C-alpha cells in the first residue's frame, strides 16, 4: 500500500494537466443501469408497501384507511378523520409510488420497449395502471402526464382524475396487447423476479381484465359501462377465476432479509397503535344491532389475535373489553383511552398481516408469534365475484345475484385457508376454515338473509361482505363506501350508535359507556401531501378532504 503512495507522490510532479489523473469520478458503488428483473421485483414490493397497513416506519395509507373504514382504531391522526397533508403514512405512499414503484415501472417500459422485451413492458403497464388507479381513488387529481419527466418538467401539473382513468383503462389494454405481441423467444421474460405471477403471462392478462372490471364498476355511477362490463363478464376465464389467480403480492418471513408484511410490525412494535375497531369486532361477533345481529363470523380468530386470555389481567383499566379482546373506540374521549395496553391490545391476526391465529391461549405478541408472511391482496377471486354481484345488483348487467353472492362469500372463506396454507405457513397449528360447520352455518345464515332481502339491503350485504373479506386491503373498501354508502360505519354523532355522545359496548354483560366525539366530516378523499404542494409550483392548493370528491362519486 505504501509503495503505491510513494509512487503516487513521485508522480505528482509529472502531472500538471493530465486528464486521466482526474478521471476517478465514475461511481464505483452504484450501477448506471439495471436489469429489468431487479426493477420489477422492486416495484412490485413497493406497490404493496405503499398500500398496506403499516407499523413504525413501514407500510402506507392502509394505516390511515383501515381507521377510516372502521376496521382499525387508533390514537393517531386518523382517529377523528383528521389526517392532514403532513401525515407520515400518506407521504410514505406518495413517495413510495412516485419516486420508487412508478419510476421503476417506467424504466422497465422504456428499456423493455427499446430492447423488445414486451412481456416485461406489458406487465409494467398493468402494474402502472393499477398503481395510478389506486392513487386516483384516494387523491383524485394527481400528476400523470407530466410525471417522471424531470428534464422537461420540474413541476408536473395535476391531471384531471377522470381523464387519468380513461388513460389507465387504455394502458391496461396496451399491457395485454404487449404481452400478446411478445412472440420473440429471444426476449427476456419475467420469472421468479415476478413475485406476483412468477412470469405467467396468462395470469397477468386475467389480472388486467379484472382490474378493468373493477375500474368500470367504480365509475358506473358517472358513466355507462354496460357494454365494456358485459364483454368482460362474457368470458369468465379471461378474468381472475380461481383463488390462485388472485392478484396479490406475497410477503415472506424474516429470513435472510426481513420480508414480512409491514402490518406485522405491530407484533414487534415498541408502541402498538393498531387497535382493532370494536365496531368491526362486534359485527364479526354478531353483537352489532344493525347488521348480522346474532350471527357470529368464524373468521374472527383468523382476523384478530387477542394477547390476553379472557381471564388475563390488563395493566391499566381498559376502554373496551370483551373476554380477551381489548381495544379503544373511534372518536373516544374516554378516561381509559390512553392507558398503555401494549401487551394487552388485540392485534390483526394471521390473515391480514401474517400474525397469530387466535387459539384462545393468549400470549404477548412478538416476532415469534407469526411468520409475517401474509400477502398484500390487491384483487382476489372473491373480489371479482363481489364486483360481479354488485354489477348485477345495480342492474348494469343481468345475472343471478343470489348465486354470485353465495359464491363470493364462499370464495372469501376459501381465500383465508389459501392465504394461510400457501403463504403464511405458520409454525402453530391452524385449523382449516372452509367447510367447517361454523363456516357453513355462517354462509348459510348470510346467504339466507341475502336471498330474502330488499334490493337496497342486498347492496348493503354485498358491500358488507366485501368489506369483511377485504380486511387488510383498504383502498377498495374506502372507495366502495364512498361510492355506495355501504357498509354501515360507526358514527359517533349518530344518536342510535352513540346515544347522548356515549357509545355502549354491545358485548354481553358489558356496562361500559364511553364518551365519543367527532369534529370532522367523513373525508371523501385524502389530502395531498403537503411536501408535494410546497415544492410543486403547479400543484393545486390543498383541498378540503371532506368536500373534495373523486370524479366517480355521485
Amino acid at each position: 500500500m505504501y509503495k503505491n503512495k510513494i509512487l503516487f507522490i513521485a508522480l505528482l510532479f509529472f502531472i500538471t494537466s493530465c486528464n486521466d489523473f482526474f478521471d476517478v469520478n465514475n461511481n464505483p458503488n452504484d450501477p448506471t443501469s439495471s436489469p429489468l428483473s431487479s426493477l420489477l421485483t422492486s416495484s412490485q414490493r413497493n406497490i404493496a408497501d405503499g398500500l398496506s397497513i403499516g407499523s413504525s416506519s413501514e407500510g402506507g395509507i392502509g394505516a390511515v384507511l383501515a381507521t377510516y373504514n372502521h376496521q382499525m382504531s387508533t390514537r393517531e391522526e386518523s382517529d377523528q378523520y383528521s389526517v392532514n397533508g403532513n401525515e407520515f403514512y400518506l407521504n410514505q405512499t406518495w413517495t413510495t409510488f412516485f419516486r420508487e414503484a412508478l419510476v421503476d415501472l417506467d424504466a422497465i417500459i422504456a428499456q423493455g420497449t427499446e430492447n423488445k422485451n414486451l412481456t416485461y413492458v406489458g406487465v409494467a403497464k398493468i402494474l402502472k395502471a393499477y398503481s395510478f388507479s389506486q392513487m386516483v381513488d384516494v387523491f383524485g387529481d394527481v400528476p400523470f402526464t407530466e410525471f417522471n419527466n424531470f428534464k422537461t418538467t420540474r413541476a408536473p401539473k395535476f391531471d384531471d382524475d377522470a381523464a387519468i382513468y380513461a388513460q389507465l383503462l387504455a394502458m391496461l389494454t396496451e399491457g395485454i396487447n404487449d404481452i400478446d405481441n411478445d412472440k420473440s423467444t429471444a426476449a427476456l421474460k419475467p420469472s421468479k423476479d415476478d413475485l406476483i405471477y412468477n412470469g405467467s403471462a396468462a395470469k397477468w392478462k386475467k389480472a388486467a381484465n379484472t382490474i378493468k372490471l373493477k375500474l368500470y364498476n367504480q365509475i358506473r355511477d358517472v358513466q355507462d359501462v354496460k357494454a365494456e362490463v358485459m364483454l368482460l363478464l362474457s368470458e369468465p376465464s379471461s378474468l381472475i377465476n380461481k383463488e390462485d389467480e388472485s392478484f396479490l403480492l406475497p410477503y415472506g418471513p424474516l429470513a435472510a432479509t426481513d420480508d414480512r408484511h409491514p402490518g406485522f410490525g405491530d407484533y414487534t412494535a415498541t408502541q402498538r397503535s393498531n387497535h382493532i375497531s370494536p365496531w368491526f369486532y362486534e359485527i364479526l361477533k354478531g353483537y352489532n344491532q344493525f347488521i348480522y345481529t346474532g350471527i357470529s363470523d368464524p373468521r374472527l380468530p383468523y382476523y384478530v389475535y387477542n394477547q390476553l386470555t379472557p381471564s388475563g389481567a390488563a395493566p391499566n383499566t381498559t376502554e373496551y373489553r370483551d373476554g380477551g379482546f381489548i381495544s379503544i373506540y373511534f372518536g373516544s374521549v374516554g378516561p381509559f383511552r390512553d392507558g398503555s395496553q401494549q401487551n394487552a391490545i388485540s392485534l390483526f391476526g394471521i390473515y391480514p398481516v401474517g400474525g397469530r391465529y387466535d387459539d384462545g391461549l393468549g400470549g404477548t405478541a412478538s416476532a415469534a408469534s407469526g411468520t409475517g408472511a401474509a400477502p398484500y391482496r390487491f384483487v382476489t377471486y372473491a373480489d371479482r365475484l363481489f364486483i360481479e354481484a354488485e354489477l348485477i345488483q345495480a342492474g348494469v348487467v343481468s345475472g343471478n345475484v343470489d348465486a354470485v353472492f353465495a359464491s363470493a362469500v364462499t370464495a372469501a372463506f376459501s381465500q383465508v385457508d389459501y392465504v394461510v396454507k400457501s403463504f403464511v405457513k405458520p409454525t402453530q397449528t391452524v385449523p382449516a376454515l372452509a367447510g367447517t360447520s361454523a363456516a357453513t352455518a355462517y354462509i348459510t345464515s348470510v346467504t339466507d338473509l341475502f336471498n330474502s332481502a330488499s334490493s337496497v339491503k342486498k347492496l348493503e350485504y354485498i358491500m358488507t361482505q366485501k368489506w369483511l373479506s377485504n380486511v387488510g386491503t383498504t383502498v377498495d373498501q374506502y372507495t366502495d363506501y364512498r361510492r355506495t354508502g355501504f357498509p354501515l360505519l360507526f358514527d359517533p354523532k349518530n344518536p342510535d350508535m352513540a346515544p347522548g355522545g356515549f357509545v355502549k359496548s354491545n358485548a354481553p354483560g358489558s356496562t361500559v359507556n364511553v364518551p365519543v366525539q367527532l369534529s370532522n366530516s367523513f373525508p371523501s378523499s385524502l389530502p395531498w401531501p403537503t411536501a408535494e404542494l410546497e415544492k410543486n409550483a403547479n400543484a393545486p392548493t390543498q383541498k378540503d378532504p371532506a368536500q373534495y370528491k373523486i370524479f366517480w362519486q355521485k
Partner: protein
Amino acid sequence: MKRFLFLIFALVCTLSAGYSQRVISGTVTDAAGQALIGANVIAKEATAIGTITDVDGNFSLKVPAEVTAFVISYAGYETQEVVLGTSNSIKVTLNEGKLLEEVVVTALGISRKEKSLGYSVSQVEASALKEKAEPDLLKTLQGRVAGVDIRTSQGAPGSATRIQIRGNSSFGLETQPLIIVDGVPYSNEQVNTSSQTSGGGAYGSGIAGLDPNDIESFNILKGAAAAAIYGSRASRGVVIITTKSGSSKKRDGVRVNFRTSYAIENVANLPSYQNSYGTGSNFTYANANGSWGPKFGTIDSIPAWPEYLAAYPELFSKTGKTPFRAYPDNVKNLFRTGNVLENSIGVEGGSGATSFGITASTLSHNGYIENSSYKRNNFGIGGSTKIWDRLTVGGNLSYMRGNQTGGFYGENQVGGASSQFARSLFLGRNWNLELPYEDAAGKPLIPNGGSQFDNPYWAALNNVVNSIDERVILGTRLRLDLHKNLALNYNVGSNLYTLNRSEVTQELSRAANGLGRIIDDKFKNREIESTLTLSYNNQLNEDFDLNVNVGHNVNQRETERFTNQGLDFVVPKIYSLKNTATQAFLEDTQSKRRLMGVFGEVGLGYKNFAYLNVGGRNDWSSTLPKENRSYFYPAVSGSLIVSELVKLDVLSYAKLRAGWAKVGNDAPPYRTQDVFIIDENFKGVPRITRSTNTNDPNLSPEFTTELELGAELKFFNNRVGIDFTWYDKKTTDLIYNISVPNSTGYETFTTNVGEISNKGVEIGFNAIPLLTENFEWNIGAAFTKNKNLVVSLADGLERVQLNGVLSELSPYLEPGLPFGYLRGTKVVRDNAGNPLINPATGGMIVADEQGIIGDPNPEFKLGLTTGIRYKNLFLNGLFDYTKGGDIYSVTISSLLGRGVTLDTEDREGGFIIPGNYANPTDLKSGEPLLVDGQPVANHTVLTLNDLYFSPNATTGATFAINTANEWNVYDATVFRLRELTLGYNLPSNLFGFKYFKGGTLSLSGRNLWFFAPNVPKHTNFDPEVNSFGATTTQGIELSAAPTTRRFAVNLNINF
C-alpha cells in the same frame, strides 16, 4: 508501513551535531526586573539555533563557535541584539516596544509579520487549552476566539463538538473549517451509524482525537482572504495546528514536561422534581408515565408494578401491593460520579540545527452515565535537522487511538428505538428504580411495562455503542535554501483514519424487534497532501520589501465504508455478526477524489507601514464535469500601520486592514452521473431501484466571496488592545441536493443553486488594568456576531428541508431566513395572530401547514476572560454569554408534560388558555366563532394535566406533550461560568533540585454555573445540548444526555 516508520525513526535518531560548541546561559528581564517568560533567544548567524526562556526568565543554549551574537525578542518588547563576549553568561533587559514585530503563522505555515496582514488571524495560546479538565480540544476554545462558534452536543464522553467560523457558508458541503495539522488536512467527520433521531449514539467527530498536550500552536484563519491559498476547502476558514512533534521550532537542550490531571464530573443540571404527586392522570392513579395522579398520602398503596411483581413476587406484600410514595432521588440515583484522568509526558530538545519533540498522553474519561467512557492514547514524535548546509529535513509521526463507549440516545417516542434517556429524566415520582432491572431471563423491567422504554440501568449495560478510532499522521518536510532570498519548501504527508464501531442492542430490548441486533460499521479515510512552495523574500531597497510565494498542491482523499447488520442473536451474549440469524449489508461504498492546485501570491511592503498582498489559485477537481473542472480565484489584501504615520502618546499601535477574496469549492464525488441503487434482496430475489437523486450534468464549482475590514488598536504601551473585524461573505452557486416534487420521480436534484450571506462583526479586547512586580490583572473579551441569511434558492423553490429529523419538525433553508431555521407544526391563529381555541376541547387546533418555529443561530456570543496573578498564585476565569438562538427540546416537553418538576407542582384549580373560540364548523379556517357578530372568549377550563398533556393532539392541543412543535421551542440564551482555575506556579528552586525547572499546580472547575433565563425554571435545562453533534442540524434536542460539571486538580512540572 513499517519501512516508512523506520525511516522516520532513523531520521530522528541519527540526528547529531559535531561542531565545536559552547553553552551560553542567561536571564531576560524587563525594565522593572521582571522575568520574561518565553522570550525568544536565537543565534544571529544560525537562526536554526535558539531557545526560549523559562518561567524565571532563564535560558541556556549550546551554540557553535561561529555564533557571535544573539537576537532576543519578546512580543510587545523591542528586539535586542546581544553580542557575545568571552563570558558564557549574559543578562539582557528588554524595553517595552513601540514597534511590534509580532510574527504569525499564516496559510501553508508561512510566517509573516503581523502588521503586513490584511486579514484577521487569531492565535490561541497553547497553554489556554490545558488545565481545563476538558479532554476535548475544541471545547477548551469556547468563548475565547471572536468569530468562532463552538457548540457542544451531549454530556456523554467523547461526543462531538461543532466548530464554525463566520457562519454557515454552504448548504450541502461541509461547513466546519478545514483543519490542518502539521501541514496535512485532518478529516473531522462525524460518522453516523444510526439515525440520531431514533436512537443513534452520541457519536464523536474526528478532531476529538487531537491531544491538547501536544499542541505547539493554534492559529485560526477566519476569512477567505487569509485562507484562499488553501484552496477549495478554505471558504469555511482554516484552523492550523502545529504539534510539538511536528514543529520546526529550534530547541536546545532537553526539556521534559509531565502533566497529570484528575477530575470528577457530575450532571450539571438535574431538574428540580416535585415529590407530591404520583403517576396517573387528573389526580386518578394509573400505572402511567405521567406524574399527574393522586397526591401522596391520599392513597396508601397501589398494585405492585406487574412486570416486577411477576418477576419478583417476594419483593412485594402478599396482597401484591406496593406503597404509594415518592422516590425523590430516583432520577439522581441513575447517575454516578464520573471522572477524567489524564497523563502526559513530553520531551523536547535539540542541539544546533537539530531538534525533536515527543509527546505521549493518555486520557481516561468515565462519564456520569453508567457504562459510558472515552479513552484516548496519543503518541507523537518528530524532528528536523539540517542534513546539508542548504537542506533541512523534518518529519513527524503521530498516532491516536480513541475508544468511546456509550448508549443510544434520541427521541424517546420513535418506534423501534431504545433511547437510554427515554424516561431517565422524567421518571414517575413514585417509581422505585432501585428494584432489580431485569428478570431471571434477562428481560428489562420497568414499572409501567409494555416495552415502553428499556430500563435505563439495563440499557446502559446491554445496549452499547462502542467506537474505536485510530489515526496515523505522517508528515515530511524539506527545505532547500536555493539562495539567500529563495527557498524551496516541500511538504508531503498523509492522514489515515479508521473507525470501527459496533452497536449492540441486546435481545429483549424494545428495539430491534426484541431479537437483538449488532451493527458493525467500518470506516476509513485516507488523505494525502503534497505542497511544493517556492518562496522569495527580499528587502528591495530602503523602502520596499517583497515576498513572493508560488506553489503546487495535490490532494487525494479516499474513503471506504462497510456497514453490516446482524439481527437475532443465536447464542446469547456473543456479539458477532456470525452469531446472528440474518445479516444485511447496509453500506458498502468507497470514494476517491483528487484535486490539484497551483497558486501564487505577491506581498509588497512599503516603509514598514503599508502592505499589499495579491494572490490567486487555480484548482482542478476530479468531482466536477470535465468542462467545469478548472476554476480560478483571486485574493487581495492590504494593511496600513497608521501609528507609523501619526504618533500619539496613548496610541501605541494602530493598524487598518482590508481583504477581499474569492474561493471556489468542488462537489462531493460521483455527482455527475445518474444511477440505480442496489437494494436489499426481497425473498431471495435481487432488487434494484432508480436513485431518488438526479444530477446536473453541468455542475460547476460553488464560490464564496468575502470582504473583510478590520482595525487593530493598542493603547497605553500596549496595555489595552482592541481588534475589530467586519466581514461580508457571500456564497453563490451552492452545490446542493435541492428537493424536488416527488411527482417528478425524484426526491432531490444535485445542482448549483442560490446564495447564502453571512455578515458579522468580531471584536477582541484585552487589557492589563493592573501590573506590578507581584500583581497582574488582565481581562479579555471576544465578541462574535454573525447574521446569516439564505438569500435565494432555486427558482420556483419556496424552501428545502436541510436535514430530515421528524416529519413534523426539521431544519430548513428558505430565502430571507437564516440557515437551518426550524420549521414545524403550529396552531391555527386568528387574523391578529392569537391562537384560536376549539370550543369542544378548550385546546388549540394544530394547523395543516407547518410554519417557522425557531432559529437556532444565536444573535451574538460574548466570552469574557480574566486572570489575576499574585506572585506565583493565579486565578483565571472564563465567563460566556450566548444571546438568542432557539432550541426545540423534548426534555423540557417531557418534563412538563409528565408533570414531574416543581414547575407543575401547583396544580390544583383550573386553567383557561387565553383566546377566542374557533368556528366549530371549520376549526382550521382561522375564523373565530361569532355570536351576534362578536368573538367569544374561551372559558373552557382545563386541568393543569390537560394544559401540559394535550387532550387531543390535533384538535385539543395545549402545551408540552402532543401539541404543535412551536410550543416546545425555547430561547436558548444562556450565561455561563465556563471555567475557573486557581493555580500556583512552582518556582524552579522549590525543591533545590537542579533538574527541576518549575511547574504549575492548579485546581479547575468547568461549567460551574449557568443560567438560562428563558426555559421553565425548574427544568434547569441547559440549552447548550444538541442531539445531532457536529452536523448542520442544530437547535434540536431529543432526550439528549445533559451537560456535565467538572472539578479537577492538575499538576504540570518541567525538568
